[in-house]
């Protein structure tokens, strides 16, 4: 393989140990200038750990870091910034109580001497970066008011604005849909042309093939493969990642859906700025049916799910489960009535970071393990937890470890497991495959199929076209809050779905 010597940063023999786990074992990595260096590996392989070391967030237990032929120490994120290293973390890292502009310029505020921060200039410059990403975000909104996809764009804008020599992107597109990914790739190409070394991590293999130049495979904390992207295909990636070919998740168990168990009528959620986030959505799901909801960012899928779970005080419309209308606006009651939601934002809404893996799994379903009405039977609980861990192949060495000690993808599986353990009649899954590797995706999809086969009604949202085509019995397309169309999978074509998903957006983009 032709190896250019244009190496900007090199990790040598890096080992990183956490309590009870060794995340990296003598790993070497070379990052090349003006190239996209792709890093792949299963959930928990050590990708994020390696990146956190380069970004100065974690210190390697053993090993050396070399930059431009000199050994360097990265003891803090500030050190890394000084060496021209920027990162988009896998988990969102914004100050929710600050504006987008303030987030982008945090720690390097634009000041006017003694008169303090020049907010106007910050907003203007921030808008410039955001426009480059075609984010459609105004820089003076509060970060916490943005949906997760847009928050991810803000993170990217911040990293790009740093003007770094090395830019690490740890799953930057996990909450983005196709349109935003295209824009991001244009920005990456531009950075590449300017000689920036880019590190790109993603579980979406076709993205890697499109954007990557060099690819490095990590397995259980060790480097197991290295190649140029032009010499390989996705099968090579899968094989070197999990050691075998991908399991086929599309295999359908044919069964006829039963009667309708879930229906919404005219769900409306007004937006604060006027207009509707969810615009008169009426939709029904039958027993044993998987309904995929496709849409681009801002289509209103998450908001629809939140209305169904009673999260929003001021939505209107009716929701029925097995023909009974659900009253009130109370999430606890909705869960008792047979609904469950896997939220999109696992850190803020899915996990309790201070609790163990086991406690996170069982926290929503403790009522099922009761004796005498109040006493939790620990044995019963434990066996249910172990079953969930097995069913979803969660990589948990010990269920009593903290949930944050697991890799991002495994945390996602815990959130899925928690919802499944409540034994719902209707399951709402908001981007359930966010951040999980190909093998795990197959596990989750097989679980979804099995549950549908057992009579569960599933609504899942996704921005992944392939996924929605492969997994759904019926496909609904949402755009700008409206339900544009619902088609049977057998009648659906990709073109049809893509054009439907863009319908409401065209007019909106022009306004923006």
């Amino acid at each position, binding site marked *: 393989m032709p190896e250019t010597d244009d190496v900007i940063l090199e990790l040598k023999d890096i080992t990183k*140990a956490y309590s009870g786990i060794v995340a990296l074992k003598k790993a070497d990595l070379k990052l090349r200038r003006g190239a996209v260096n792709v890093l792949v590996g299963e959930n928990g392989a050590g990708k994020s750990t390696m990146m956190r070391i380069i970004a100065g967030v974690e210190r390697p237990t053993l090993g050396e870091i070399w930059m431009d032929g000199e050994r360097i120490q990265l003891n803090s994120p500030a050190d890394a910034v000084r060496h021209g290293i920027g990162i988009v973390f896998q988990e969102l890292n914004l100050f929710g109580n600050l504006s987008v502009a303030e987030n982008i310029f945090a720690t390097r505020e634009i000041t006017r001497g003694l008169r303090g921060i020049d907010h106007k200039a910050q907003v203007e410059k921030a808008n410039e970066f955001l426009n480059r990403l075609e984010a459609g975000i105004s820089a003076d909104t509060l970060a916490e008011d943005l949906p997760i996809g847009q928050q991810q764009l803000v993170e990217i804008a911040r990293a790009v604005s740093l003007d770094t020599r090395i830019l690490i992107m740890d799953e930057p597109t996990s909450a983005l849909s196709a349109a935003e990914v295209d824009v991001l790739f244009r920005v990456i190409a531009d950075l590449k042309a300017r000689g920036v070394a880019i590190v790109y991590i993603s579980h979406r293999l076709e993205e890697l093939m499109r954007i990557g130049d060099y690819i490095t495979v990590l397995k259980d904390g060790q480097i197991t493969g290295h190649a140029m992207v032009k010499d390989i295909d996705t099968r090579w990636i899968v094989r070197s990642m999990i050691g075998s070919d991908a399991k086929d998740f599309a295999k359908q168990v044919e069964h006829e859906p039963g009667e309708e168990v879930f229906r919404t009528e005219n769900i409306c959620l007004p937006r604060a700025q006027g207009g509707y986030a969810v615009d008169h959505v009426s939709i029904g799901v039958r027993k044993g049916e998987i309904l995929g909801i496709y849409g681009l960012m801002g289509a209103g899928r998450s908001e629809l799910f939140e209305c169904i779970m009673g999260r929003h005080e001021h939505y209107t419309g009716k929701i029925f489960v097995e023909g009974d209308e659900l009253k009130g606006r109370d999430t*606890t009651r909705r869960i008792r009535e047979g609904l469950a939601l896997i939220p999109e934002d696992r850190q803020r809404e899915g996990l*309790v*970071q201070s609790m163990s893996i086991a406690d996170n799994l069982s926290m929503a379903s403790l009522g099922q393990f009761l004796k005498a009405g109040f006493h939790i039977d620990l044995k019963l609980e434990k066996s249910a937890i172990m079953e969930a861990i097995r069913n979803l192949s969660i990589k948990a060495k010990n269920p009593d470890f903290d949930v944050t000690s697991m890799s991002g993808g495994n945390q996602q599986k815990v959130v899925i497991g928690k919802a499944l353990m409540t034994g719902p009649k209707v399951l709402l899954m908001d981007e359930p495959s966010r951040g999980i590797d190909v093998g795990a995706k197959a596990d989750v999809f097989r679980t979804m199929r099995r549950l549908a086969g057992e009579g569960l009604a599933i609504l899942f949202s996704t921005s992944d076209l392939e996924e929605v085509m492969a997994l759904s019995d019926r496909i609904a397309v949402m755009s700008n809050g409206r339900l544009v169309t619902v088609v049977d999978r057998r009648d659906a074509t990709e073109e049809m779905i893509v054009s439907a998903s863009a319908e409401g957006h065209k007019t909106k983009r022009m306004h923006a």
Partner: protein
Amino acid sequence: MTTATQTAATGNHLSTGAALLTLMKLRTFIALFAVIIFFSIFAPNFLSTANMILMSKHATQNAFLAIGMTFVIITGGIDLSVGSIVGLCGMIAGGLIMYGVALPLGYTVYFNIVEVAIIVMVVGILIGAINGLLITRLNVAPFIATLGTLYVARGMALLYSDGQTLPNLTGREDLGNQGFSYLGSGSILGLPVSVWILIVVALGAAYFARFVPLGRHIFAVGGNERASRMSGIRVNRVKMFVYMFSGFCAAIVGLIISSELMASHPATGTNLELNAIAAAVLGGTSMSGGRGTIGGTIIGAFVIGILSDGLVMMGVSSFWQMVIKGLVIIVAVVVDQAQRRLQQRVTLMQMAKAG
């Protein structure tokens, strides 16, 4: 830990690290033994039965408050009002015994001791409920809400008797309200009654935290309120509960102190909330919520109780006592941090061994 199978030569380093780690995990326990050993050498009569009983009584008071405080802190809150609730509840107990409750038409109702105790506990729970309502319904920050009730309750305790002590709570035979002293001075099988009550409450709380859904939810709410809500946990109900329980614990302490002294003084319990917080933190409760154990808290309460009593017995000035107490709390937290770092190193050594 797999130290058993290792040869002495290679396993030496590792087992030192592992042993140190175990030591650190047991640090609250070790602190407890350390203070006991230290004072049994340097404080005369420290190990005498009489002194032991006296000290356990003092520590018990801290422990009750600290149990309530632990739950509150685990939810991510704080309860500054417990010391004042102790004072107010003590005054109400004294008032009920001495004066009863005056009804219109000139009647006065007197309650027997059990009824008095129940009324006082209900008052404690109600004050806790007020804290809870302020925090959940009116969205007042816990620090502010309970700071407010701290002043209000203390003021009410002072108003109750115009600042005077209610002495001689022996009750009267004709009113059938004698026997108040049993709570503070009685003993069963050689252990003070208050210690027995503590054992019951502590075991109950520990059981509750592990085996009852509401108890588990306390940890979830403190760890991530939003995720708890999305998982169907009734967050407000959990918070109401912890403040009410904290009020209940404070009421018990109010009863015990009045009973011990056979008098109620409106300033009783001043600053006890700080002891309770210190005991919880010493026992490993995280001030940022989500983590803590009842067992740790009890040990923490005893460390603080024994430390203050021991220093008094050694004749250390009360100014120095404060300095030492402060240092102990700081050291405890520092050790907590050191433990995390050490844990990493031990893992690495274990890995190196495994190859």
